[in-house]
């Protein structure tokens, strides 16, 4: 091959690299391992983590564990899906394209909205993209985000708007819910969008037609975030109570917790916002013989055509993760999703009632889905008591909400058995004197 190329050595191929910047010596990385050695090395690293596949965990806070049936991994492990590129050549990518179209349709169904894209990086960047969409479609410069939105999503939104062209302000809370009176004081004709989460970060059902009405009366768009779509197997879907945009994280329905990634962000909108959507969109079309086919469409929104005038800089999305979600939702179906949601909500109530009997106090009284806030004089001691029984405890709220420094956020889904919950309650009750509850 060197002869065909017309060089006598491989080094000659790199002759265009100026001498001054040519790298000398060897790369300082560990030497190569064989496959068997790799399994040993990575196996040992994995062993050094305490995973929650078999260990009961009461952690939620944006990352939820639902049982994922075997068909999901069977489908996403198919190399025809996992090793394909973005479907820019539609005739050679009908499988990926049709699967994305099915994902879009399912996101529309769960959001109760008209159009969904092919996925975004994660819930946090989806929230930021939703905010930017409100601003660009209205020309307004203020965004109001509820403090009951996931703290990390709010941090990411802040980072995305560092340049100061958009002003992001936080709406205060009233008993764990977005404060309607604070919202009323902040709304004005310069507000592009109001961003809430449902169920919110404390697990509380935030859906409120009154809230939607106030937002719309001010001419702003309502963005509803979510990070466990199973909720919509049981609860009102965002479009049903006034959302213009629904966005968030679809990973809870189909992917393992994965230390938080790769996940599957989603965004869905009312028709009027279609042309401002970020990222890829798949539409139906036909070939020369009238057969139905699918292709990427409305690409004039995107960076590879519009460059600095694009609606977003996003190129890569999370196709394979979106496929996992599509397969999960297909496997569950509408009835299965309702059963999972119902079981999760019941398990969470069972846990909450047990904790109350063990002496912890419920912090907010509003209805919740599968996550709730409990108070203890020493929340650290509660988690330590749980850890001693091999149970991963709740999320300490103090760091993100200083006023809730004595609170823990607990989650239960259908993956916890009744026995797991009983053990958790027993552990907390036994440590009663230590956690300082009455």
């Amino acid at each position: 091959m060197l002869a065909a190329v017309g060089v006598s050595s491989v080094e000659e191929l790199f002759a265009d690299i100026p001498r001054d910047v040519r790298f000398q010596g060897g790369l300082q990385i560990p030497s190569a391992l064989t496959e068997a050695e790799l399994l040993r090395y990575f196996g040992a690293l994995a062993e050094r983590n305490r995973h929650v596949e078999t260990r009961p965990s009461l952690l939620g806070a944006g990352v939820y564990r639902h049982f994922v049936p075997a068909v999901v991994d069977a489908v996403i492990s198919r190399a025809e899906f996992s090793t394909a590129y973005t479907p820019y050549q539609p005739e050679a990518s009908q499988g990926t394209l049709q699967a994305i179209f099915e994902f879009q349709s399912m996101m529309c169904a769960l959001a109760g909205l008209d159009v969904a894209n092919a996925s975004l990086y994660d819930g946090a960047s989806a929230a930021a993209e939703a905010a930017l969409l409100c601003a660009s479609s209205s020309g307004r410069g203020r965004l109001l985000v509820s403090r009951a939105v996931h703290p990390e999503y709010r941090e990411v939104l802040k980072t995305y708007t560092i340049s100061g062209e958009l002003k992001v302000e936080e709406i205060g809370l009233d008993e764990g819910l977005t404060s309607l009176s604070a919202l009323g004081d902040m709304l004005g004709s310069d507000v592009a969008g109001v961003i809430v989460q449902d169920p919110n970060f404390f697990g509380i059902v935030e859906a409120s037609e009154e809230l939607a009405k106030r937002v719309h009366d001010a001419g702003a768009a309502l963005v509803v975030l979510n990070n466990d779509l199973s909720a919509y197997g049981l609860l009102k879907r965002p479009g049903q109570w006034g959302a213009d945009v629904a966005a968030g994280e679809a990973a809870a329905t189909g992917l393992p917790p994965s230390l938080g990634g790769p996940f599957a962000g989603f965004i869905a909108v009312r028709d009027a916002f279609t042309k401002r959507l970020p990222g890829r969109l798949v539409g139906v079309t036909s070939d020369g013989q009238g057969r139905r086919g699918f292709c990427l469409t409305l690409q004039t929104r995107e960076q590879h055509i519009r460059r600095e005038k694009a609606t977003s800089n996003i190129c890569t999305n999370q196709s394979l993760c979106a496929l996992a979600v599509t397969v999960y939702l297909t496997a569950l179906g509408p009835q299965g999703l309702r059963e999972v949601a119902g079981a999760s909500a019941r398990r969470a109530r069972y846990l909450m009632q047990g904790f109350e009997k063990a002496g912890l106090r419920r912090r907010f009284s509003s209805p919740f889905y599968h996550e709730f806030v409990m108070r203890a004089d020493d929340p650290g001691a509660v988690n330590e008591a749980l850890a001693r029984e091999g149970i991963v405890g709740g999320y300490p709220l103090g760091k993100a909400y200083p006023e809730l420094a004595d609170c823990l956020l607990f989650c239960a889904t259908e993956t916890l058995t009744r026995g797991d919950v009983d053990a958790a309650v027993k552990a907390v009750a036994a440590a009663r004197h230590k956690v300082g509850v009455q």
Partner: protein
Amino acid sequence: MTFAEPLIFEVGAPGRRCVQPPPDETAEISLDDLAVEPTLPVLPEVSELDLLRHFTRLSHRNFSIETHFYPLGSCTMKYNPKINERTARMSGFAHLHPYQSEADLQGALELMYELERALCAIAGMDRFTLQPAAGAHGEMTALLMARAYFDHKGERRTKILIPDSAHGTNPSSARLAGFKVVQVKSDARGNVDLEALKTHIDNEVACLMLTNPSTLGVFEENIVEIQRLIHEAGGLLYYDGANLNATMGYARPGDMGFDLVHINLHKTFSTPHGGGGPGAGPVGARGELVDFLPSPLIEKNDGAFRFADAKHSIGRVRSFFGNFLILVRAYTYMRAHGPEGLKSVSEHAVLNANYLLSRLKEAYTLAYDRRAMHEFVLTAKRQKEKGVRALDIAKKLLDYGFHAPTVYFPLIVEEAIMVEPTETESRQTLDAFAEAMLAIARDAESDPQQVLGAPRGLPVTRLDEVGAARNPVLRWETPS
């Protein structure tokens, strides 16, 4: 395998079930406090076999690396080793909750810490953040860091310089970070035009974004001079790592004077593209820029690993710790190759590209007649005179069983065909692809109709993309 496949919504029947959740052990608990929505969302109702048959058939309607050669320029479609999938699926990685304590996550933190060190060694940078979820996300992260850096120094710099050959994400990321984009033209050899560059440099320039080797597949010969010019004017140099696969062990962005870089783990480090993601786009920084990296970073104290924030961190760019299982795959690949292996990856990538170039340069026209790195750009100018365009050649290749190269990019090359074979292809595959390209060139000359109707042998023939955009149908609706 060219039968039409119905939508999953068109398969199945009301009430048909696939997975049945176990009976609710807490069924006696009341949900009366919740306003339960009476209607259910419209989702498919199918059996397990319906489901598998549907998605397996869909998979047959795809080209992929494991079924077809994929010489897609700028995308680095190399083979994705199976061992990466094994490690990423280990319970001790896949089933970690990001809010578990640092003590519960020591193995994961160690992996990320070691991956960061390896990236620093390969790129010649001081620190990396592993948070960004993709290349474009990395670009945006780096530019937000540049903005914070200049704000910190009290300098007002508003412009980002970008060569006209750059990927579209560069200008759109710059815009998202609140900068003004200034395009710099390329010269006749595909380098940045130095005279044009000089006219744009002033104290308003925050950063020059450069892909090197460029998207034209050539190494920027004036890199030393460029970095001098930018740095003398107080600006920063940003490296788009899309083409790192060409230079591992031969050149490092840090040694070339780049202050900020992003690397696409889904290109150079073999994590599967997944039909368009997930990827990962870690960002590296040198010198003072390190203080502006997003949160969190990972540090090692007395053998224990913990999360920490940079001094002037720009904050978070993504929730949690990035696309962690992609990081596991990429680190597996690095450990499988080691220093010599990675150098050999780049050598074979460049050799394969130059070999294909040598076989195709007579039948097609080379956009830049010089040594290629890991990819090269042809133009179908000659074929266009016969009415055969780059798009037609791309579609005809599909009939030969090859995925098409990238076409119409870079934008500055007329009828561009951009070929990147990667190091994982054998000479036989390269020869077979070359033969197909040569046959298409002959047909374009003597019998253009042979090329124009393609593809003929796929599940669908050429699709009406204009019609799809004119009357957008973007979701399935229950027939009324």
